[in-house]
């Protein structure tokens, strides 16, 4: 086992990894930028090294500097967390050359899964279902029509060189196809100088369901069941849960086997996640594989009882997995809410700043993975996530009620957070019934919220009036004190008419 691990990250995930190290008797090394000296990950670590100025490109993304600190500090392994360098094959290769173990997959697995087309080809060859369509560009209109008929409408027409929504067309039926091809082609030509197109089946209102996998260096690969991450805002996950209400035991088994096959296809090592889109008929299609620890890993930990970060470290140290697939059980239900420093009432505008008050919920089944504390100033330079609130319940209903309860106890002042947004989701009928897809928040929930009439407006008005009353009272007391305290200088005020007058 390692004796020293460098954690190349910040925020809650650095704290999460350092906690695992401490519980395993491994010394941890933190790195920090100039704005993070006070951060929890530095204070919880055994050693800390300054890495550079606030900008990520000059600190947490600085490979040369990280390697220098790794050498200097005697780190045997590096945990990259998520984001920053976690899925950078160059970083993985440099570490390999230096003889420092990356707690993650080999560089080649990272490279293959990092490329959309290469990943699809590789997993498809291993029998993993991918979204039906063509991977090469199609020449003639006749060919496009033939392929579209084959995969079935609606289809997406995509520019091979595309990006940013350009040269992208949703085609609902064959009669729309010819004009869609012409428009998409000319758009692609003018945007990318290349008008080659390909076709993919359009998955209507998909759910996002992913499988957590663990693979050791001996070639044993298992999965830890699914997480449902369909509650997204602008394609960013905000609430995750395990198990998914939508997945049956049979499909769960099938998805698990497919995910293991995808991992094996690239000789995967460590913890990884195979993401799928699932349509209304519960057909699932490979989306991508994330070759790192996921933000939402705690929901899997809560239902399986397996500490994924500790497993990552053991695997990296060369230990074989201690459990077989059939020993892994999914018990109860877990939900995670990502709490961001954003104002849900002002279009989720980011709100960095000083956390003035912080009260974290507790009680049965509640876990808060956070990187902040009262008095901490959330820097403007990084991701505005401040915490992940996770609950476990014996079933989904208990988990939802428990999450609502925990959120109502969560007090953060000084910055706006998404806690109120999560309370509203926990109260939403569609969410409670499990009736949602990846478009739910943007297309259904926010509309329903606009029409909902909050029920405590009179209490709010009363509190507002009392607050103002008390404030004016204490201000007038203060100004009285000032006047009394002035004593001998009272004469001044006679030369300055209006001094001390208040409205």
């Amino acid at each position, binding site marked *: 086992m390692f004796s020293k691990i460098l954690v190349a990250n910040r925020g809650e995930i650095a704290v999460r990894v350092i906690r695992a190290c401490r519980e395993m008797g491994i010394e941890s090394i933190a790195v920090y930028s100039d704005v993070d000296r006070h951060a929890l990950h530095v204070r919880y670590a055994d050693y800390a090294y300054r890495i550079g100025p606030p900008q990520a490109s000059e600190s947490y993304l600085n490979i040369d500097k990280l390697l220098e600190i790794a050498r200097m500090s005697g780190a045997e392994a590096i945990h990259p967390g998520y984001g920053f360098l976690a899925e950078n094959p160059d970083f993985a290769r440099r570490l390999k050359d230096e003889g420092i173990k990356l707690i993650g997959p080999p560089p080649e697995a990272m490279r293959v899964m990092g490329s959309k087309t290469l990943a699809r080809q590789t997993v498809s060859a291993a029998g993993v279902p991918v979204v039906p369509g063509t991977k090469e560009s199609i020449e003639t209109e006749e060919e496009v029509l033939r392929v579209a008929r084959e995969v079935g409408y609606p289809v997406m027409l995509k520019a091979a060189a595309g990006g940013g929504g350009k040269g992208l067309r949703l085609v609902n039926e064959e009669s729309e196809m010819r004009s869609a091809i012409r428009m998409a082609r000319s758009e692609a030509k003018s945007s990318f100088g290349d008008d080659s197109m390909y076709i993919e089946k359009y998955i209507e209102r998909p759910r996002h369901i992913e499988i957590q996998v663990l693979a050791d260096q001996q070639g044993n690969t298992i999965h830890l069941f699914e997480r449902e991450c369909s509650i997204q805002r602008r394609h960013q996950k905000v609430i995750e849960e395990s198990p998914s209400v939508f997945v049956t035991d049979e499909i769960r088994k099938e998805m698990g086997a497919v995910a293991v096959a995808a991992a094996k296809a690239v000789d995967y090592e460590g913890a990884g996640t195979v993401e799928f889109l699932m349509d209304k008929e519960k057909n699932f299609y490979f989306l991508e594989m994330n070759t790192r620890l996921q933000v939402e890993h705690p929901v899997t930990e809560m239902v399986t009882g397996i500490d994924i970060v500790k497993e990552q470290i053991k695997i990296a140290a060369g230990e074989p997995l201690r459990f077989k697939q059939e020993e892994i059980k999914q018990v109860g239900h877990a939900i995670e809410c990502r709490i961001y420093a954003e104002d849900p009432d002002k279009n989720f505008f*980011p709100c960095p700043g000083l956390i003035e008050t912080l009260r974290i919920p507790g009680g049965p089944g509640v876990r808060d993975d956070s990187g902040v504390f009262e008095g901490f100033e959330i820097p403007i330079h990084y991701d505005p996530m401040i915490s992940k609130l996770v609950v476990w319940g014996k079933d989904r209903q208990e988990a939802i009620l428990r999450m609502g309860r925990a959120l109502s106890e969560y007090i953060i002042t000084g910055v706006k957070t998404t806690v109120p947004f999560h309370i509203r989701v926990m109260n939403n009928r569609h969410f409670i019934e499990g009736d949602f897809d990846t478009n739910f928040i943007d297309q259904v929930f926010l509309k329903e919220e606009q029409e909902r009439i909050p029920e405590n407006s009179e209490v709010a008005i009363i*509190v*507002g009036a009392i607050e*103002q009353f008390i404030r004016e009272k204490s201000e007038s007391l203060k100004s009285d004190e000032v006047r009394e305290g002035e004593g001998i200088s009272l004469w001044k005020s006679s030369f300055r008419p209006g001094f001390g007058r208040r409205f």
Partner: protein
Amino acid sequence: MNYYVSLEEKEVLVGVAEAGVAQFKIRIEDREIAVDAHKVERDAWSIVIDNRVYEADLVVSDDDIEVLIKGDMYPLRVLNEQKKALSRVSEAAEGGKQLIDAPMPGKVVKVLVMEGQEVEANQGVIIIEAMKMENEFKSRAAGKVKEVFVKEGDIVEGGERLLLIE
């Protein structure tokens, strides 16, 4: 004391009188409500009305008070009688001046207009980057850009003036 409390378009007159330590008599229209109100933490009130418990978190900036109760946010404007009278006067005198300020610290990525330029309602006027996100600020109403207080690349504080539109 009487307060004009407005929530979105509605305005109510609320009478507040102290009736003991942390006890208040509130009058809304012709109803009188006994309220037990304790400031328990900074910006957090614990309220009991008819033995029913409420927790309210506040964000106060002058007369704008945002109240958060059970996950719902109530943006209030609370004016005493003098201020209400003053606001009637100043609203008439202001004549549609619009000061755009930075709601949070960040960096000016782009100024989209020049001084003297005519702008339409909802036209983007400036882009501020904060926390890896770019946010475009729009003019609420049509008008003319009177003054630009910042330039591209400037680091701005929360509340700092950015533009004045007339």
